[in-house]
């Protein structure tokens, strides 16, 4: 009988470490542990984790956007004010270091964009401006067209107390459009004219939002999105964290799903927003 109870207890401890247990199983586990004077510890979890580590195929770098969110989260957790860097420090530079911060990379990217103008121009010539269409939303998956996006965009653009900005090409020609953001609603839209259709299996666009005019070290991730239609398109902003009074919006082209640190040199397009004065 005791062996059966031992086996059941060990089955439950194994299951807990491997796939988790439900409430009833947890109650049973605690009851059996009490009956058998077994002090539940981390030993099964440690064993399962060691097996997982032993079997791991490859360590994949964490997306830079996620790293940035974690760093910001750490700052909040530990009550540290994030480091800010003055705009004037962001002078374009051709120096390239593989592990530079996003901020340093952004400055480099602005300058680098000019150097890849020829390639970018070829890429951009595929665009044929047409009447406004609505592209897929800011998700890695193909999104169905949403006819009301244009109306929502126009309504926000016409509303007071909105953050508005317009795209200025950073090395690439023929890309224009606007950004509108509502702090109160925590929603916004981007309108692009001439941003090329991307092959989402190979690369995706990603929005970065800077809340400080001094351009903080780690901007907020505004979401990954696809351009699925040529010409004039509207994309909803998918800010991952609460965003207040954004000052700068930047678009990069990244691997599917977002940035990987080792891919920083694969820059095709960078667009930077400036506040509209009307």
């Amino acid at each position, binding site marked *: 009988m005791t062996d059966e109870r031992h*086996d059941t207890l060990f089955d439950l401890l194994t299951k807990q470490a*491997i*796939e988790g247990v439900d409430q009833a199983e947890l109650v049973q586990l605690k009851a059996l542990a009490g009956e058998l*004077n077994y*002090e539940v510890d981390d*030993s099964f979890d*440690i064993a399962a984790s060691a097996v997982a580590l032993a079997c*791991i195929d490859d360590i994949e770098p964490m997306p830079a956007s996620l790293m940035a969110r974690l760093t910001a989260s750490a700052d909040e957790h530990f009550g540290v004010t994030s480091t800010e860097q003055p705009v004037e420090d962001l002078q374009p530079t051709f120096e390239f270091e593989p592990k530079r911060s996003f901020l340093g990379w952004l400055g480099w990217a602005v300058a680098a964009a000019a150097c890849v103008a020829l390639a970018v121009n070829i890429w951009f010539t595929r665009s044929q401006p047409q009447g406004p269409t609505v592209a897929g939303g800011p998700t890695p998956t193909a999104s169905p067209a949403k006819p009301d996006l244009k109306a929502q965009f126009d309504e926000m653009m016409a509303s007071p107390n909105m953050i508005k900005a317009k795209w200025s090409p950073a090395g690439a020609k023929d890309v224009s459009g606007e950004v509108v953001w509502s702090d109160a609603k925590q929603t916004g839209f981007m309108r692009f004219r001439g941003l090329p259709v991307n092959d989402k299996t190979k690369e995706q666009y990603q929005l970065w939002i800077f809340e400080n005019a001094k351009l903080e070290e780690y901007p907020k991730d505004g979401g990954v999105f696809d351009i699925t239609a040529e010409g004039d398109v509207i994309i909803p902003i998918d800010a991952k964290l609460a965003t207040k009074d954004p000052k700068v919006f930047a678009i990069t082209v990244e691997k599917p799903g977002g940035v990987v640190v080792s891919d920083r040199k694969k820059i095709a397009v960078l667009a930077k927003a400036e506040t509209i004065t009307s």
Partner: protein
Amino acid sequence: MADSILKRIAEGDRNAVQECLNKYGGLVWSIARKLLRDQDDAEDAVQEVFVDVWKNAARFDETQASETTFIAMIARRRVIDKIRHSARRISADSLDDVLLEPFTRSDKAMQISVEAEEAAKAMRTLRPEQQQVLRLSIVQGMSHQEIADATGMPLGTVKTHARRGLVAVREVLGVRGNLQEATV
């Protein structure tokens, strides 16, 4: 000997937090991506894992496990919790490959942690069915029932292989508790 990153985090060293992210970010991300195919779920899980790591840094006991294994344990617990609160998924990896693949990754394991190396050694001493069940459950994230369905083994047999396999690994690691498996 330098203090561990977790000990420094427990003492409020902000620099250690960034070191922790730099050193273990890829590992935690890889664990999450392996078991949670959805990118958003994986990102959410990783954020929750690191908050757990910061909150539990003081619990780290280097006599029980290495820092790497401790963080992997926290990551697995959070990911398992995530899986249990959503529809279960089976890894998209070829099941045939997993079923047939022998355990041969000691070289990789040696680079990750002492426990991983020991676990690799322990895995090689297990019966093939036990290795298979542990790989399918721990690495591929399959439930016991899913393994039974996929392999044709009775559910009770799957449970027994998992239990005996994990207990054997646990004993090799020297982390066994105050009860021992009667027969392995």
